[in-house]
């Protein structure tokens, strides 16, 4: 099979670094034993204890998203440079690594997804948990019907002053944090509440039923999105919060930061 090695060897010839996506422990150690090799591990958690690690906020199912997000994180952390040739090893069909793809790191395609998680006011785990919550809500819906939801994360004090209550706050004097097990139980009830959820930097659910009152001046979000997205996008311009919106009409989860649409994922894909 030496011939095959020659043909596929081109894929990994003279790459600047090898990027492993969620490798198993033994796989990682085999790669780590190789000399003269820059190794970067990307995954939802650093299970192998690698030194250079980039965290993914979601286990992206789409391989292009997964690699794009991972490389953006690596660029942001200065682990790789613009124009580096990389061999990305990841899994597509099975649980283990079964695919190698040669990718060129490109600063131009930067979307700010990585910034959304790591450089926002709220803690990355909180944003991750809220995103998972929105995806879960989008998947389940209410009795099979699609639902919408709006989460404002971070800078809660300011957001509270830029919004008013629609009704009594069900989270008054409660200490519920996103990521608590109870939140998953309450998930179904969430979709019945109108208005926005406001979540603090540390993940406390401060309020539900909030009517956001930002000034929508100069907010540039794609046409065709409704009032929920407009309100969600606009509040991120007025404050340092980010918003995660589940659309009722098309079922997509979108994230906004500084008035711009940063991330768009389909809950059905996870």
């Amino acid at each position, binding site marked *: 099979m030496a011939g095959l090695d020659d043909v596929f060897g081109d894929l990994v010839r003279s790459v600047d670094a090898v990027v492993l996506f969620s490798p198993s422990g033994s796989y990682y150690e085999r790669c780590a034993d190789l000399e003269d090799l820059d190794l970067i591990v990307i995954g939802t958690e650093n299970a192998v204890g690698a030194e250079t690690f980039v965290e993914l906020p979601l286990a992206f199912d789409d391989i292009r998203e997964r690699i794009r997000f991972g490389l953006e994180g690596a660029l942001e952390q200065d682990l790789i440079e613009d124009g580096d040739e990389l061999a990305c090893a990841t899994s597509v069909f099975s649980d283990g690594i079964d695919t190698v793809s040669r990718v060129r790191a490109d600063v131009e395609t930067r979307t700010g997804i990585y910034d959304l998680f790591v450089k926002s006011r709220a803690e990355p785990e909180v944003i991750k948990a809220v995103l998972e919550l929105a995806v879960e809500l989008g998947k389940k819906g209410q009795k099979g019907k699609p639902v919408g939801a709006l989460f404002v994360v971070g800078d809660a004090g300011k957001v*509270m002053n830029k919004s008013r209550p629609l009704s009594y706050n069900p989270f008054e004097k409660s200490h519920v944090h996103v990521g608590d097990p109870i939140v998953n139980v309450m998930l179904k009830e969430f979709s019945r509440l109108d208005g926005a959820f406001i979540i603090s930097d540390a993940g406390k659910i401060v309020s539900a039923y909030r009517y956001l009152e930002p000034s929508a001046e100069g907010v540039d979000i794609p046409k065709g999105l409704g009032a929920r997205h407009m309100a969600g996008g606009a509040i991120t311009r007025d404050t340092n919060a980010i918003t995660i919106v589940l659309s009722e009409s098309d079922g997509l989860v979108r994230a906004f930061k500084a008035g711009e649409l940063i991330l768009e994922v389909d809950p059905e894909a996870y």
Partner: protein
Amino acid sequence: MDWQTLIDEPAVIAAAVLALGLVVGYLVGRLNEELLSASGVPEAVEGTPFERTAQSIGTSTVKIVARLSSWFIYGIAVLTAIHIAQLLDTDAFWLRVTEFVPQVFIAVLVLILGFIIADKSELVVGEYLRGVKLPEVSILPKLVKYSVLYVAFIIALGQIGVHVLALLILLAVYALGIIVVGTVAFKEFLVSSAAGVYLLLNQPYGIGDRIRIDDQTGIVQEVDLFVTKIEDDSEEYIVPNRKVFENGIVRIRD
């Protein structure tokens, strides 16, 4: 020879006791192993150096403990058999041995348990402190480990009748030192957390309220057990909760 006289023969009874002891010991060992496995002991001790050492010599913690109980019963059976057969006619020796064997057994058990708990607590504390990448901090897990080991040794030694008064005094001094240092170092934390409990339960102010503590005015961004974060236009103050009680809060309504 008659059947009846055979049963009365001490040697025969001794042999029967010995056989019974062997069977019971083996069964208890097996039962122990099953029980320990079923109650999740292998998972609990996984990764501790004691377990790893046991693994490297081809056994495991569960097996060692199970064997120990077996050998304990074998020992009793052998001693009882010797006594019945009257091979050693020394009542004083017998009395001491019956007292001593269970104590040794418990001492060994305490030691094994001590080693495992020490290793486990070292792992847990190490894991908890992993985020803090300071070389000085890595001494803490070791300290916890050896403290637990020390206590286990004292219990084990006390069990087999060694005088441990001096060691106990050392332990008391050590514990007292920790308490004194702890109260001095964490006094502010304790006061703040007591105030924090009140703040979290009663919520005299919540996120989004405009308040003044001392001369720092701003919007509340976060309240946790130890601190309240209030933010002005460009400045974020992180105020320890004890200040709330020392100076009072002003809620600003407009």
